[in-house]
């Protein structure tokens, strides 16, 4: 019980505010070119997607979307830090 309490306490202490860039249809889903989000300090890309899909259910209607961290496609297990540049990449259609 104490450990659980500590974990919760730490988690609250170590939340971070991240800024997320949106492009294409993601801009319309978020209602802007960037959004701010509070996530746990040790959050993964997967955690971030879960939070975003809760807040913006239209994301789940997309054919697919990726998360980019520092201009690179990120994997679900990758962790995010406050200094990272994070972007939501809906299906690309250049060319």
């Amino acid at each position, binding site marked *: 019980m104490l450990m659980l309490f500590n974990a919760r306490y730490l988690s609250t202490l170590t939340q971070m505010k991240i800024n997320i*860039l949106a*492009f*294409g*249809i993601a801009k*319309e889903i978020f209602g802007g070119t960037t959004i701010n989000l509070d996530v746990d300090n040790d959050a993964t890309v997967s955690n971030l997607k879960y939070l975003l899909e809760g807040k913006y259910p239209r994301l789940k*209607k*997309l*054919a697919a979307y990726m998360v*980019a961290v520092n*201009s*690179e*496609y990120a994997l679900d297990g990758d962790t995010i830090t406050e200094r990272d540049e994070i*972007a939501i*990449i*809906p*299906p*690309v*259609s*250049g*060319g």
Partner: protein
Amino acid sequence: MSTEIKLSVSTLNVQQCIDWVMSPECGGINVFIGTVRNATKGKPVVRLEFEAYDKMAIAEMEKIAKQAAEKWPVQKILIHHRTGVLQIGEIPVIIAVAAAHRDAAFDACRYIIDTLKQTVPIWKKEIFEDGEVWVAAHP
């Protein structure tokens, strides 16, 4: 091997691109030019709008050029992509590849456009008379 990768808000110039890839060591140049079609699945298109995540788009295009140069013996690779509003007939993309021999130029050019369309963070919105659609966004 040298590359020129560019995102541009103004009209792409085919002649300049070809001049850039030409070199006396190369015998073959293959060029792909995308153009804005006047219709999608029979529905008239008014114009297109391209948006890019510039920094990452450049990085991804550089990766693709590097991969192509590893796969095929090519001398020069140029990728120019437009952003902003494009009218019918305008050019969203030019890819030009010069190689000593033509097979490498063809293969590399095709690989670059195929891969660009899959991985480079650029988005196209089609504007119709009665609405607009982000291409490929939905299944």
